[in-house]
């Protein structure tokens, strides 16, 4: 598994370029619980962003609630600033099916109407089920069908390959 630090360096470089090209000085960084918040935190630090960070727990917006039920311990979503007309940098650890991002976008728009949302992920893998792509990507991973990648943390952050028993 790749080193987190070098992935974050690459993400920071892409982030700088992305917002420079668009003339945006400083977006509001919003991390998706839990891994996304860790990455958002680290990325924000590398960028020297000073605006308070937002955190989303998308459990209430998941599309598999009727199948798997209440998620234990949903942390409160915290968005310290108004989102209306703001540029948002949405951060998650792993991009796979795209369903988490769909849920996060739904929740974001319940808080306001951002001017734009840019997606940044630490790693992405094949298997999209929705038209969701990240503009900022730390690395692309090749994984088998029964494999998953998980971010462990917060200190130290490391990626772990997980074999699923039931091949979900």
């Amino acid at each position, binding site marked *: 598994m790749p080193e987190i630090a070098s992935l974050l360096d690459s993400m920071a470089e892409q982030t700088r370029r992305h917002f420079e090209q668009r003339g945006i000085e400083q977006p509001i960084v919003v991390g998706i619980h839990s891994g996304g918040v860790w990455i958002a935190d680290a990325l924000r630090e590398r960028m020297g962003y000073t605006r308070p960070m937002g955190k989303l727990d998308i459990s209430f917006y998941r599309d598999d609630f*009727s199948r*798997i*039920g*209440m998620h234990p311990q949903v942390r*409160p979503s915290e968005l310290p600033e108004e989102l209306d007309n703001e540029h948002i940098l949405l951060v998650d650890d792993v991009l796979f099916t795209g369903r988490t991002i769909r849920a996060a976008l739904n929740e974001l728009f*319940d808080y306001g109407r951002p001017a734009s949302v840019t997606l940044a992920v630490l790693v992405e893998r094949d298997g999209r089920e929705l038209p969701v792509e990240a503009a900022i990507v730390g690395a692309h991973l090749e994984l088998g069908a029964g494999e998953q990648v998980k971010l462990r943390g917060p200190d130290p952050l490391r990626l772990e390959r997980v074999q699923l028993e039931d091949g979900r």
Partner: protein
Amino acid sequence: MIAAAYPARQLPQPGPLPNDLQLTSTGQLRHLLTVEGLSRELVTEILDNAESFANMNEKAVKKVPLLRGKTIVNLFFEASTRTRTTFELAAKRLSADVLNINVSTSSATKGESLLDTLRNLEAMNVDMFVVRHQQSGAAHFMARHVEPGISVLNAGDGRHAHPTQALLDMFTIRRFKGDFTRLKIAIVGDILHSRVARSQIHALNILQAGEVRVVAPHSLLPAHVEDLGVHVFHNLEQGLRDIDVVIMLRLQRERMEHAHLPSEHEYFQLFGLTQRRLLAAKPDCLVMHPGPANRGVEIDSAVADGAQSVILQQVTFGIAVRMAVMSMVMGVRSA
């Protein structure tokens, strides 16, 4: 284990234990009929989930799509404003569709039985009943007879139980006071007629509250109330001494069949909560009331509106607690 040796139908039926009805085989909440018998873990889980919903109020859209496509019926055989509206709002904030049925305007007044009402509503493919009834055990009865997959929440049955009220009271106490084991809590007033008091006492015992007191005249206490593990006081000043939380109960005039009291005026003289009396409690003592308060009967307006009162916060938290219970029963994994 012994039961397995007999055909289930031939077993003597002492009436199902609440948990046989309200929990799944894996211990998840399927109905909420009573607080009695719930584990500390489950009560804590409900309160934790409510905490997540309580933080939703800052959102522009105070709604989550958790119960989209579900239909929830508020079936109220007894008047209620606060409970019904907070259940309705909780359901709507979870994106469920809500049907409000009040008995005075329904066919139940035309002689339709509870079971008929139930069957007819089931035929409309509903997912949950929130039921309030003047008969103790009405919610249990419904839970026993609903189709699998339909949940029943007790919104108050006779003098028996009002679990969501007790849970929202626990949520309020936890929010302001934290750990229950250090707390002294007094429940004051009409304990005899109060399903709220009964549910509160069970909930406080489950959460291992430091001390639970009931303060009331003899005529408004049920027999053997001490068996619930509470300390009984007949004098308000004594009952309030060093208390962290005082819960005032409404004098239930509509439930009084006999003369339990000489007069409301005299009741206020002896058991009404005033600022002066509140001085006996700890200086940061919370004042709670499940509502609606009879001002000047069990509580003075100055106390009800005072700095220590969290009566309105109870209403707000009631929505979050009901959202938590609704999503938990609807989110049960199909075994």
